[in-house]
């Protein structure tokens, strides 16, 4: 690992000033950044430790029924906050389906949003990668790419965003609070991440020094709590990134869907909101044919970026499954295997 200067500022404004310098990076838990630094993928000259900044570790209910989640809240603490999990069950389920218990105990809300792609060519410094080294090319295009993007990709980059947490968050219109050199501003989470285009190294709209201080869910997001699920197909039962994942949140009145939110994970360089599919569901019942039409709309623009044609049909099916389970109702307790598409009775071994 390249050496670096280590700073632990006492205030947010000092942190922003310290991190605005060229070569600086924020350090929270470090569960992604230290891994990247050990591999030589990230080579910061200065780490600005934000773990002791005051006021960033709170989960605060808002007057409108929403919630404000501090950027330093640990994934496990948010997922296991009873009030939060009851109001936003798909978000809790997504969190518990990610990483391992050790990582969830450390990893932070802000860090989750800013985690880097898990594309193997991004991680391998001997490979060409336009994200890691602009202009060097993309070895993933002609390489092992069955898990790469099927939506929003470009010739320059076919990487995916690996977050589970972000998928239900964008479905529920989460907003990101950012402190920067010119003060506080807000960005819809849906607008935080950039599609690769010709500049895959630019992954978010954040500017040097910008610090995510909180993520907010609006009060309306609670209206879906009775019918909200997150499902995630993995290549092993647990502790794996999504091949494809989906969040579905429905507001159902007398058997009719009045409002619907849908998003996909593992399919693009950003968590993918499926607004056209949401419209198709309005006024319908829990009808498999309508769910399938919505899923087809969600993937209408999808195209394989390599050996990953299968992900398109897999994404449609996982959307139908997620909608079916969401319509059936949020379970009282999150399943033993959170977000597993292979549901079974509680207590039974599902993958023995």
């Amino acid at each position, binding site marked *: 690992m390249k050496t*670096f200067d*280590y700073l632990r500022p006492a205030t947010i404004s000092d942190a922003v000033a310290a991190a605005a310098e060229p070569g600086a990076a924020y350090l929270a838990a470090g569960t992604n950044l*230290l*891994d990247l630094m050990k591999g030589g993928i990230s080579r910061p000259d200065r780490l600005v430790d934000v773990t002791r900044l005051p006021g960033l570790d709170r989960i605060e209910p808002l007057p409108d029924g929403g919630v404000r989640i501090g950027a330093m809240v640990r994934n496990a603490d948010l997922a296991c906050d009873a009030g939060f999990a009851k109001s936003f069950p798909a978000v809790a389920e997504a969190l518990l389906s990610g990483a391992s*218990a050790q990582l969830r*105990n450390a990893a932070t809300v802000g860090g989750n949003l800013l985690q880097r792609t898990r594309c193997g060519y991004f991680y391998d410094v001997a490979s060409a990668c336009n994200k890691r080294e602009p202009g060097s090319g993309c070895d993933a295009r002609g390489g092992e790419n069955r898990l790469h993007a099927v939506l929003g990709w470009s010739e320059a980059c076919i990487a995916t965003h690996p977050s589970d947490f972000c998928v239900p968050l964008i479905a529920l219109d989460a907003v990101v609070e950012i402190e920067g050199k010119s003060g506080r501003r807000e960005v819809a989470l849906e607008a935080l991440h950039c599609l690769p285009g010709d500049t895959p190294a630019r992954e978010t709209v954040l500017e040097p020094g910008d610090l995510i201080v909180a993520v907010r869910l609006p009060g309306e997001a609670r209206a879906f709590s009775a019918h909200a699920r997150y499902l995630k197909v993995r290549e092993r039962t647990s502790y794996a990134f999504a091949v494809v994942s989906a969040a579905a949140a429905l507001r159902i009145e007398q058997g009719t869907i009045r409002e619907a939110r849908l998003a996909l994970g593992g399919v693009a360089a950003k968590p993918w909101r499926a607004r056209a599919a949401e419209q198709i569901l309005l006024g319908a019942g829990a009808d498999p044919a309508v769910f399938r039409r919505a899923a087809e709309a969600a993937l209408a623009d999808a195209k394989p970026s390599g050996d990953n044609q299968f992900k398109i049909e897999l994404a449609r099916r996982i959307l139908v499954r997620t909608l079916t389970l969401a319509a059936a109702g949020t379970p009282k307790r999150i399943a*033993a295997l959170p977000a597993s598409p292979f549901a079974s009775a509680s207590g039974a*071994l599902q993958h023995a």
Partner: protein
Amino acid sequence: MNFSISLTVNGVRRDVALDDPRVTLLDLLRERLDLTGTKKGCDRGQCGACTVLVDGRRINSCLALAVSHDGAEILTIEGVARGDQLHPVQAAFIAHDGLQCGFCTPGQIMSAIGLIREGQAGDDPERVREGMSGNLCRCGAYAGITEAVLEAQNSLVATSQRRSA
């Protein structure tokens, strides 16, 4: 740059002068404090061999910068037994053959202690398996590990019920 940090490791306060901010908590324990029970497996947060409790929570010590944990309370495998009396999780791993080569075992035991403290798995074997999925065992002793964690969970719950009765 020099960084002085102080940690409480297995109940003992340790003041450490770090000459390099790159030192992970894992390397600090193993190389500077000679606590080699905590193992370095992958060193990338994938295997769980380096699991320790920091302020009561299990984390991967290989992905934690020591300097960032100034003031923390650390519990490692060396600190769980009371003299010759094994921790109930250690005893259960022996009773259920929850190991073969033993390399992953300190991490498995620290993770199990963390899991039981978290109180989310209870006596559901599937929840235990899911809760332990961050600890790989290349010998494949998983069946024994699950049995050991379940037994230890039950004996620790029984002990705490006796204490509160």
